[in-house]
């Protein structure tokens, strides 16, 4: 094998460039904190990274959806609790009014309070969550219950459309967010208004019979819906903690695929650095003395 000076310098140059390139690569990875800088660094890893990123973005959204649904349900729950409290008071008054010894005067006093309570119920039935009517079905922009000015009775707004809307809280998981106002409040208002009429008519017998029973039933209705909301809230809360765990998992997967192991990278950097230094040191000697130096 015949070795010439130009072979030595060329080879040296090439090796030096390669060593410097590796050094630059590792540097770029450490600075960017990413192992995959472009698809060709790892084509399969890239498509996995894209998938994890997509899942993360979806999870983030489901999480926010679930949180918002929870807010809506909390507002619904508050309204129903208030309705329950009001009906409890109505119940007390009904029991009081059912007492046969009550005078017409005393019944009238009760009537005033019942009217007051009915107004409160009316307000609760028209509760909003972030400016949208909770009990209005699809018609979140219209008051679901209106007062008939001529009769003073509360009726369902005929312009509203009932409908349950759902939020996505998982890839194929949805949850109904609202409950239909007319189903909840229809019988309640009827019972309270019957009580009103009986009080006006001073009909103690009816109050102690049919009406007392209806008011009790109303309380049961509220309880039923509160239980329903409670169940949905539970489901949402467990979904949220599941999404939390999912997010962590996916972050970890993503980091595994496109992130770097800093300790390993820095070790590698040190190795490459020393290789580069050694190359330079060799370079100083590689311009070997030739026979020229020894001829006089």
């Amino acid at each position, binding site marked *: *094998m*015949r*070795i*010439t*000076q*130009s*072979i030595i310098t*060329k*080879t040296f140059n*090439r090796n030096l460039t390669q060593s410097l390139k590796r050094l630059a690569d590792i540097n770029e990875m450490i600075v960017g904190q990413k192992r*995959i800088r*472009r*698809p*060709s*660094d*790892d*084509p*399969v890893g*890239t*498509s996995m*990274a*894209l*998938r994890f*990123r*997509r899942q993360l*973005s*979806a999870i*983030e*959204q*489901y999480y*926010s*959806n679930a949180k*918002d*649904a929870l807010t809506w349900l909390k507002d619904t729950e508050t309204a129903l609790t208030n309705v329950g409290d009001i009906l409890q008071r109505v119940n007390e008054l009904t029991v009081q009014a059912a007492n046969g010894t009550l005078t017409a005067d005393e019944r009238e006093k009760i009537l005033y309070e019942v009217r007051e309570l009915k107004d409160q119920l009316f307000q609760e039935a028209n509760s909003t969550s*972030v400016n*949208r009517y909770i009990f*209005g*079905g*699809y*018609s*979140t*922009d219209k008051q679901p219950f209106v007062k008939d000015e001529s009769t003073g009775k509360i009726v369902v707004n005929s312009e509203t*459309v009932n*409908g349950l*809307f*759902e*939020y*996505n809280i998982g*890839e*194929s998981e*949805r949850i109904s967010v609202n409950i239909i106002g007319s189903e909840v409040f229809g019988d309640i208002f009827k019972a309270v208004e019957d009580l009103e009429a009986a009080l006006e008519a001073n009909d103690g017998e009816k109050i102690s019979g049919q009406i007392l029973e209806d008011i009790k039933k109303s309380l049961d209705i509220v309880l039923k819906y509160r239980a329903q909301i409670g169940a949905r809230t539970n489901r949402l809360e467990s979904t949220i903690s599941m999404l939390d765990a999912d997010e962590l998992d996916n972050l970890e997967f993503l980091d595994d695929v*496109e992130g770097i192991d800093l300790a390993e990278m820095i070790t590698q950097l040190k190795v490459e650095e020393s290789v580069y230094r050694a190359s330079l040191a060799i370079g100083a000697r590689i311009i070997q003395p*030739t*026979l*020229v130096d020894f*001829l006089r």
Partner: protein
Amino acid sequence: LGIEIAKKALFASQRAQQTVSHNISNANTEGYSRQRVILESTYTPYSFGSAYQLGTGVKISDINRIRDEFTDRQYRNENSSLGQWNIQSEFLKQVEAIFNEPSDIGISSVLNEFWKGLEALSKDPSSQEARGIVIERGTTLVNTINNAFTKLNDIVNDINYRISIKVDEINSIANQIAQLNLQIQQTQIAGASAADLMDKRDLLLDELSKLVQFETFEYDNGQFTINIGGAILVKGPDAAAIEFDTSVSDGQIIWKEYNSEVRILKGELKGLLDLRDDKLKSYIQQLETFIQTFATEFNNIHKTGFDLDGNLGEDFFIYDVDNRKWVVNPEIVKNPSKIAAAKEESGVPGDNRNLLELSALRNKVIEMDGRRSTIDEYYAFFISKIGMDAQEASRATEGQALMVNQLDERRQMTCGVSLDEEMTKMIQYLHAFNAASRMVTAVDEMLNTIINRMGIS
């Protein structure tokens, strides 16, 4: 007679020293191959009546260049492959840069943002603000895709430009070689050595090999020929011209004289043509499939819904044929209420079922290019295909570069100048010169003895 022989020896040593000097001077000259003086003893056919043949000294019979033609061929063949992969790798890196994946600004990210915008709107379809966000993100999405199309087409144009430059380079090299062929032939006819001219020709051939694969033949009469794809590019002092035919799209390279296509096997030209006709074409087509499918599926669902005013939905994404780009329907941009969120006319404004259906499109498996996958997966597959192509090209470039370097080293082993060797030769010829000088002095002394000392005293 002796002094004549010594004179010849002096001249020969001097010429040999000149060659040593020439070698040392060109130790770092690109493409130079070391030269060697071939010395030959001379003799006279006349025996002057004796039984011996009388030597008459030394002469220089030739100055050779030392070259390994077999390795040259191998080098050029591998260099063609290197050129082909290298240029592909260079352009594929640009393609990767266009898509900028994985990152927070690539198409996949803006698509994710768009899906999120839809979901946010599904929670409150009456919100004008959320509608605005969907439109804005939809616009960002199509703009990002339009931008990718523009840049891919820019690359195609750039490739065409590079092809035309490479074609010019080939023509220029062919002409230079033809000229050198003439000079070499003339020099050789005059009986002289054309080593340096041949070095120049070999260097040009090395350059040419990067551009395109070729074959060379040298006929007995010294005619040097270069073939590309079986047709003659250079024959002795004549060069044929090739041309980049831009009269048609996807222009090909043709022989100017015959107007027929040049068969290109390897080299940068082949790399460029393959990139343009194979890789980039398929990238553009796949990106088209992606946006086309997405827009069609999305529009189909959107059109079954009702907007805030209770009207049926219109197309959401539209291809603007005049400006050759995708846009969000300008009517919807003007009036965000036109996003069809509701499934039933009466469901407005709280009905979000159409939005839920649009969101579900994200997980819908659709057949695209014979592959069944979701929209997102199709895109991820597309990106990893580009990654694989780029990776293949860059790995092949690395491997090929290693091979070419090794072959070059092997060539250098034969034809490179070793300073040590030249120094040794220098000393050798110096001693020969000194000895010959000494010979002259000796003959001089002999003559002195004969002429001045004999018969007088």
